[in-house]
């Protein structure tokens, strides 16, 4: 529990930081004029660094987990996606992994009912995990309306769809509900399940809390403490056009929101959130299972000078014969 308590302190720290910043116009202009670039550079460079380091590591073996019959003799029905034999299969598999969390869906639980084991799907994590990640994506897409002028049409469409229930003014977005529900589930699970609690680290909680901080302040701004959207848009457009504009004091809650976002972004490359990029790299998923079909030459070996037995015999055949050693070719 102490780990959790330590991690909770991140919330007041960020809030106090933002409050402090909002007191001084000079600090505000740093937060809205310089920090965004610093954070963005850290995010991009850190992300790229991680991916490059992983990408440079050798993957000599085809070791995908095989979740179906591999491509074999023509009359044996293969499973091209669960055990891909080439790029289309791998693409299908990765798409399933990334958009549908296919592997997580495989999770089962066993219960002993009436003296016999009953295998049942354990899909709650899959459901809430999927909800959480998709709503994050939608929220990110919706935010593009601040960064594009004219607003990219699909952004408007996503927002319209997201708010199609038209509850309240301004409209309540479904993705916001889903995001909070997902977050709550992931968080409660981590706190309640003892086995999960003890492998949880301070950083695991902090990640969730930071995202929660972003989401809650965002919702507060939208529904309870409206901010000047025109000023926001001007500022955001200033960022993307590399001409930051002084925005004046927008609102404290916005600065808290911004602080959470920046901290999350800057920390992302150093945290487990890198599974965002890592999931694409995992050789357990992104390789075609062609071990038996194709010859895979290992490109990472240092060059070795080989002297094969055949060459050896060619070189020493006479001497070998003279010494009475058996030779393969006479």
């Amino acid at each position: 529990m102490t780990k959790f308590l330590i991690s909770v302190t991140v919330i007041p720290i960020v809030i106090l930081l933002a409050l402090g910043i909002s007191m001084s116009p000079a600090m505000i202009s740093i937060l809205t004029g310089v920090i965004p670039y610093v954070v963005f550079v850290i995010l991009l460079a850190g992300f790229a660094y991680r991916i490059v380091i992983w990408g440079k590591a050798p993957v000599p073996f085809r070791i995908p987990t095989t979740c179906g019959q591999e491509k074999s003799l023509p009359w044996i029905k293969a499973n091209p996606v669960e055990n891909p034999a080439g790029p289309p299969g791998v693409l299908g598999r990765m798409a399933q992994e990334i958009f549908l969390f296919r592997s997580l869906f495989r999770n089962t639980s066993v219960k002993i009912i009436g003296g016999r084991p009953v295998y049942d799907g354990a899909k709650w994590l899959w459901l809430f995990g999927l909800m959480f990640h998709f709503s994050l994506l939608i929220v990110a897409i919706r935010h593009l309306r601040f960064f594009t002028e004219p607003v990219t049409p699909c952004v408007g469409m996503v927002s319209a769809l997201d708010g199609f229930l038209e509850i309240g003014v301004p409209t309540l977005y479904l993705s916001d509900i889903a995001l909070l529900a997902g977050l709550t589930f992931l968080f409660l699970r981590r706190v309640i399940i003892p086995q999960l609690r003890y492998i949880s680290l301070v950083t695991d909680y902090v990640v969730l809390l930071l995202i929660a901080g972003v989401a809650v302040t965002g919702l507060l701004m939208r529904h309870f403490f409206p901010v000047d959207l025109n000023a926001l848009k001007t500022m955001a457009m200033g960022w993307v056009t590399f001409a930051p504009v002084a925005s004046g004091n927008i609102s404290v809650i916005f600065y808290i929101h911004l602080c959470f976002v920046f901290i999350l972004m800057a920390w992302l490359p150093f945290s487990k959130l890198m599974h965002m990029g890592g999931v694409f790299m995992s050789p357990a998923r992104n390789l075609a299972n062609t071990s038996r079909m194709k010859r895979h030459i290992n490109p990472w070996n240092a060059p070795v000078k080989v002297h094969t037995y055949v060459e050896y015999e060619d070189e020493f055949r006479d001497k070998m014969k003279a010494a009475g050693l058996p030779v393969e070719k006479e």
Partner: protein
Amino acid sequence: MKTLLKPSDIANASECLCHIESGELSPLPSPYEDFNQTTLLPLKPEKTKNIESSLDDTVAIGLPRPAGIEEEEALVAQFLSGLKRLFEKKNNWTFLQPLMLSMEHCARCHTCSDACPVYEMSGRKEIYRPIFRSEVLRRIYRKYLKPGGKITARLTGDIDLNWTTIARLAELSYRCTLCRRCATVCPIGVDNGLINHEIRKLFSQEMGIAPKELHEKGTVQHLRVGSTTGMKPPAARDSMEFIQEEMEEITGYKVDIPWDVKGADILLIHNAGEILSWPENVGAFAIIFQVAGISWTLSSEEVGYDGVNYGLWYDDVQLARVAIRHAEIARRLRVKKIVVGECGHAHKALTVIADRLLSGSLNIPRESAMVTLENIVMSGKLKFDPGKNNFPVTLHDPCNVVRAMGIVEPQRRILRKIAPQFREMTPHGVENYCCGGGSGFAIMSGYNFAEWRNLVSSRKKFLQILEAFRDEPREVPKYVCAPCSNCKGAIRDIIDYYHAGERSNLYYGGLVELVVNALDGMKKPIVRFGDKPSWG
């Protein structure tokens, strides 16, 4: 509520980190309830006086205790430098990327645990969870190898690195059968089985620590004598002649077992355990190949009559040495391809992993016996009377053949054709459970390790087998088809340990025995249930 063991607890010296109390193991159904209170008895103190045994109730390696604090510190330093090398491309290119990924992006979502049969059956003992040892390694790696690790350890998970940690981690790496079931459910593809393999490798390659059954009496003996069983070439030849005579006596069909035939189409490599423990398997292969008119041979050369490659489980270097010997023998015999007999890990070692080692003329095609057999059985050349196999049969899926390679269907197509009462286990195929003898466990029996295997790691398989035959009356003989020597060994031990022969009329064997049993032209059945023939 009892407090759960944490990864950091591994560093705190105690007599025993994890003890399974009586009644904690997952319960067994009738008529095996009397085993429900059985648990491992602590090893006698005089047996463990000089070895490290503080992990749980059993011992797999039997590490000698260091003489003093200096020796302990030297070993810790050796471990750390080995760990460092494990993350360098130059020293460890084999599985570096998945190892790095797992160190850095595991999201700790807890999905892998429910997939692990050892964890589940042990009464959910924390130390057996797939993530437990990975987390220990991860914390050591972050704290002691990453810059600033000692400072961030408070946030990213603390652990003390001392000799106790290392001794326990070494033992703990031999509580996972490397079945990779956990890897198939990980949403981001982290492979805890593979990390366990890397831990074993670190201990073996960098510190010379491995169970003697795998190393001294395993790969070392294999390379020196010719077989992990200790069988030398003359003994192998004698055995093959003996099997040849025996097969005629058993089936009434005269078979010739060819060996060292140059230029044959197929070199069949068996696990030498078959030659010693299950000669009918070797004989059945010979009968099928002879009836099908295939040009084939066995090798009686050192290493060539033993297809195992224990290096797969713990040591890349030993794996390479053995694999190259196998390929060299095939090259000298000038065969068109190598067929790996009913041995799971030999499948993976020689067909998948050895691929990167075999260059030039050593690159001889290698194939699974499952596929060869499917080809023969389905070709129509052989006539079968499936009625002869009219007894309940279930199929065990060896992890290395099925989950690790994706050879799922061929063996099933054969069984559907020749075994009318074939039924699947739940779950099966790529979702199968390990026999409990994987990664060398079936041959490891020092101290009370065999009992640990029967009670804990094989328990899931035993439950699955019982469940598959649930609706069959006790007196009906039942056949567990396990096309892998290692799995057969584990299943043999399960049947012995739980007296399942007497209580459930449970028998086991390979796939080829069933094929020959249903084959036309055999005068007598090759499959027997105790004294009773399966037909006729």
